[in-house]
């Protein structure tokens, strides 16, 4: 391997976030994921890169699709997977995060996939773990594999990310998906717009490098991609928003508002959707324009690529440190 080749790879031991990654690192993961996506669709065999490896899925927050997606990805690569749902396990009973790390270290995992309700918790855990750590969502901070699978979906549908205009709409303030996507899309040369009422989108969000809109039609004008975000029920009862119907009236994605986007605009949603709250059912189920199902499919491919690179990087790191 030449020096140049090594430089153009994703070389980090953990994947904790998208912020700070170079475009070539993102492209490296996307290229690998692209191959997996094709193989998965054909149900073809993939190299058993994780054979004999242990992947622990540690979810401090309830999740179905992300934990299943990681489990599927690790098993496709031949790894042994332990999924621990902390909501129902004994780890939660008063144990600190650091103690949890020691407990898990004793099992000698190769990769730890973590979701935690507090921003920064995954980073703290990564400092104590003797393995690679993948962030599966920390608080309202980052959800890097979601951004990667979104990018993969866009790249497959649109051919490229550079030069596109992407609108991220909804509860940006509380969204880790939005933050990871803003970092990834702007690093890859897309123009990012954020669209939401002021209470869910402070104008200071512009510091992340995106344009801020409070009017949906204005924000969707001529965009190539519309990314909707999930709105939590508890935000709709008067504290952030007056009501569900007012939110849908002004910010719900329906065909009427979609008219201002480009005719072939791609519709995305990280799921699970609140039909009739942030997105109209007709739009969500539009076979031509909605990529929502494809996002789930790309999730497995993107996570396979992430597992592949962090495992390899951890091996390299261990080799270097044990010499």
């Amino acid at each position, binding site marked *: 391997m030449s020096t140049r080749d090594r430089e153009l790879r994703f070389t980090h031991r953990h994947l904790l976030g998208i912020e700070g990654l170079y475009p070539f690192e993102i492209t490296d993961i996307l290229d690998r994921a692209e191959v997996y996506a094709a193989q998965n669709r054909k149900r073809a065999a993939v190299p058993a890169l994780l054979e004999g490896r242990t992947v622990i899925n540690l979810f401090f927050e309830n999740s179905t699709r992300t934990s299943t997606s990681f489990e599927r990805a690790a098993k496709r690569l031949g790894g042994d997977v332990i999924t621990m749902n902390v909501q129902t396990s004994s780890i939660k009973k008063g144990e600190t995060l650091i103690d949890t790390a020691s407990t898990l270290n004793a099992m000698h995992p190769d990769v730890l996939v973590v979701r935690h309700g507090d921003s920064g918790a995954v980073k703290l855990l990564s400092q104590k773990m003797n393995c690679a750590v993948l962030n599966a969502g920390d608080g309202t901070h980052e959800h890097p594999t979601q951004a990667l699978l979104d990018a993969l979906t866009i790249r497959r549908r649109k051919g490229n990310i550079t030069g596109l205009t992407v609108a991220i709409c909804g509860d940006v303030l509380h969204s880790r998906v939005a933050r990871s996507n803003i970092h990834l899309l702007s690093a890859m040369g897309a123009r990012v717009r954020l669209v939401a*009422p*002021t*209470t869910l989108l*402070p*104008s200071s969000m512009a510091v992340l490098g995106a344009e801020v809109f*409070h*009017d949906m039609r204005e924000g969707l004008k001529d965009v190539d991609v519309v990314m909707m975000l999930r709105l939590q029920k508890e935000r709709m*009862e*008067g*504290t*952030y*928003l*007056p*009501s569900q*119907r*007012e939110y849908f*009236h*002004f910010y719900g994605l329906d065909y009427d508002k979609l008219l201002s986007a480009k005719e072939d605009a791609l519709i995305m949603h990280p799921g699970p959707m609140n039909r009739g709250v942030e997105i109209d059912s007709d739009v969500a189920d539009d076979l031509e324009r909605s990529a929502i199902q494809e996002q789930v499919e790309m999730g497995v491919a993107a996570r396979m690529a992430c597992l592949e690179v962090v495992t390899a990087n951890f091996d390299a790191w261990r080799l270097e440190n044990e010499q």
Partner: protein
Amino acid sequence: MKQKFKKATGRVAYINARLLDPASDLDVAGGVLSDGESIADFGPHLVNADGLSDEVKVIDCKGACLAPGLIDMRVQLREPGEEHKGTLKSAGISATSGGITSMVCLPNTTPVTDDMSVVEFVARRARKLGLTKVYPYGAITQGLQGNEMAEMGMLAESGAVAFTDGIRALASPKVMRKALSYARNYNLLLVQHPEEPSLADGGHMNAGDLALRMGLTGIPSVAETIMVARDVRLAEDTNGRLHFAHISTAESIGIIRRAKERGVKISCDTAPPYFSLNELAVGDYRTFAKLSPPLRSEEDRQAIIEGLKDGTIDVIASDHAPEDEDSKRLPFAQAAFGGAGLETLLPITLELYHNKHLSLLQALKKITSEPADLLGLASGRLEKGAACDLVIFDPERGWKIDSDQLTSKSKNSPFDGRLTQGRCLRTVIDGRIVFEL
């Protein structure tokens, strides 16, 4: 309910008037020509009927002032819910006799105006009466409870011109900050009744020597000023549009003046009692002078006048609060707050002119074009093609305000017995003469 009137048709010329348009600083001898419901022409050439065809009906104003109809941006209507205190009709009659052609009503009705159906109910009823036009405020919070936001976006779409929790202060800084921020989505104006509830609670008049002597619990002026100061900061932080209702203290004026100099998007109004009366009016336990906020000290009254002069106070609003006898003929501490004010808005405002604090045009501006601009109403100025809403008044005519003679259903005027100058002679709404003295 059926429509109670016929639409104006044909052309009418109001000639021989002192024509006043505060928005454009016009003050000339002239007249106005209406065509059906709208203004067809106005200017000095209409000072007499020369050149007008015979089919034009001519009304001679005999040198009286002719100005755009008044806009009263703070009125409590008791309909729906408390019709025994006042109705849309009684308020309409009272307002037209005071020269008011548009008024904006607070949401503290039953049900509360936090739902689109109430906005539409009030607008439809008022339209059919054909008296003073009524524009509703929407509630900022659901049920005026100060906790969860009301559907301000949809209320605005159905016709609410601005938002307020009425006679209740929006007390929680967290809710106020969210509401100011949320209102920015639709560029909506929020109106605050600035009074810290925990300081005003249990009080009945201005806190001070007089309250001590009378043995009444006072409401300190700091109850108003700390909320003004707080909300100025919140408006600054959120970049939201905020208006303070019925400013009554000198200190508030100072805070607002400095904030405006910094460019904060705030405005304010005061009501006639706060520049024409002081706390002495409640001496002898006169419950008709029990107002909210309470009448303040003489120093405060003079500061309010200074605020009106230098433009710190943008608008004068009547703060009309009809209360029936049963709510007022009570021991002071038990009596309701508030005074009827529609019919006295014009003469008391004109006192500022007679006392040489403001020019006639400056005084009129605060009850015509200033509130119109603030609320985005098309009225309040003379404009060809605009609705023909006019007031014809004699600024010099002296009269004695007599509560019993008021047309308002509730007669609780704090100005009973006051000798005043300036009287509405005729009120025209959409080209129809709806009041004639």
